[in-house]
């Protein structure tokens, strides 16, 4: 009797299985695509958060907009263009290379080159200093005679 009871208890979970939790969104594939795109877009209200993670009301509205446009069959670039037309390049975490973003994109490399240039210049100068300290023949003779004096003492 006791064994039967244990067996029944062990089998209980197989009966109570209730199925997987349902996804919140109507279309999980589309929702995933929306989140993927929104992660690369900046929320304008809380500017250090992406459109995907922000809880600002505007971000919710924009996510709704992106979702709807995806359902209409628009591709990612069309949706990005739609948002840039309204909010500017600011919504992009990766700004396009333009005349006024040249410094942003290439400034760090320019600084690196300047730094390397300064390093090379300094190293060359140091080598010159070492070379200059070589003794002239007269000085060498004098040094040798002084050293000999020391030894003869």
């Amino acid at each position, binding site marked *: 009797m006791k064994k039967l009871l244990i067996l029944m208890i062990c089998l209980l979970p197989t009966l109570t299985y209730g199925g997987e939790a349902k996804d919140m969104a109507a279309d999980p594939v589309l929702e995933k695509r929306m989140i993927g795109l929104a992660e690369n877009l900046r929320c*304008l*209200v809380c*500017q250090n958060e992406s459109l995907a993670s922000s809880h600002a009301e*505007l971000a919710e509205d*924009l996510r709704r907009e992106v979702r709807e446009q995806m359902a209409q069959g628009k591709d990612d670039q069309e949706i990005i263009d739609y948002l*840039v037309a*309204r*909010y*500017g390049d600011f919504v992009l975490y990766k700004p396009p290379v333009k005349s006024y973003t040249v410094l942003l994109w290439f400034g760090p490399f320019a600084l690196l080159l300047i730094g390397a240039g300064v390093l090379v210049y300094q190293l060359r100068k140091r080598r010159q200093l070492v070379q200059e300290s070589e003794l002239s023949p007269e000085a060498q003779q004098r040094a040798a005679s002084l050293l000999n004096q020391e030894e003869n003492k």
Partner: protein
Amino acid sequence: MMRFTLPLVVFLALAGFLYVGLGLDPHEVPSPLIDKPAPAFNLPQLHDTGKNFSSEGMKGQVWMLNVWASWCVSCREEHPVLMSLAQQNIVPIYGLDYKDKREDGLMWLSQGGNPYTLSAMDRDGRVGIDYGVYGVPETYVIDKQGIIRYKQIGPVTHQSLREKILPLVAELQKK
């Protein structure tokens, strides 16, 4: 000598950049809509929901579109400025009640006064998105051809009216 001047120059340049940065507001994102046609919309009016307000009907005159809401704190700061501008009858101000409940919007205007020729209701914020609204209040100056000429992010102040908006309105009205 060079030993001290170079670090000093670098320091001063950096300090200069940081000083300029202090005066910039990162929340003021330049709008790409300047000098572009104002997005057309057709929305029910706040006071008379039976009637619609269409932005197309505004062609031929210079007007201001002020995005406001009863829940917006900075709008309270802006309100007296708009009231005094409305009394001067220089330029019509149209309101866009953004993501607001109708009762709340009506209540706010009846308490604080109504500077708007009329207000339209943007209940779900879609027209706001078309205008690139991200922080209420925002104000647009739209010319006779329906082109956006100026956008004020944040409250309109006496200073911004005097220095930017009113000279621009006068110039646009002459054209």
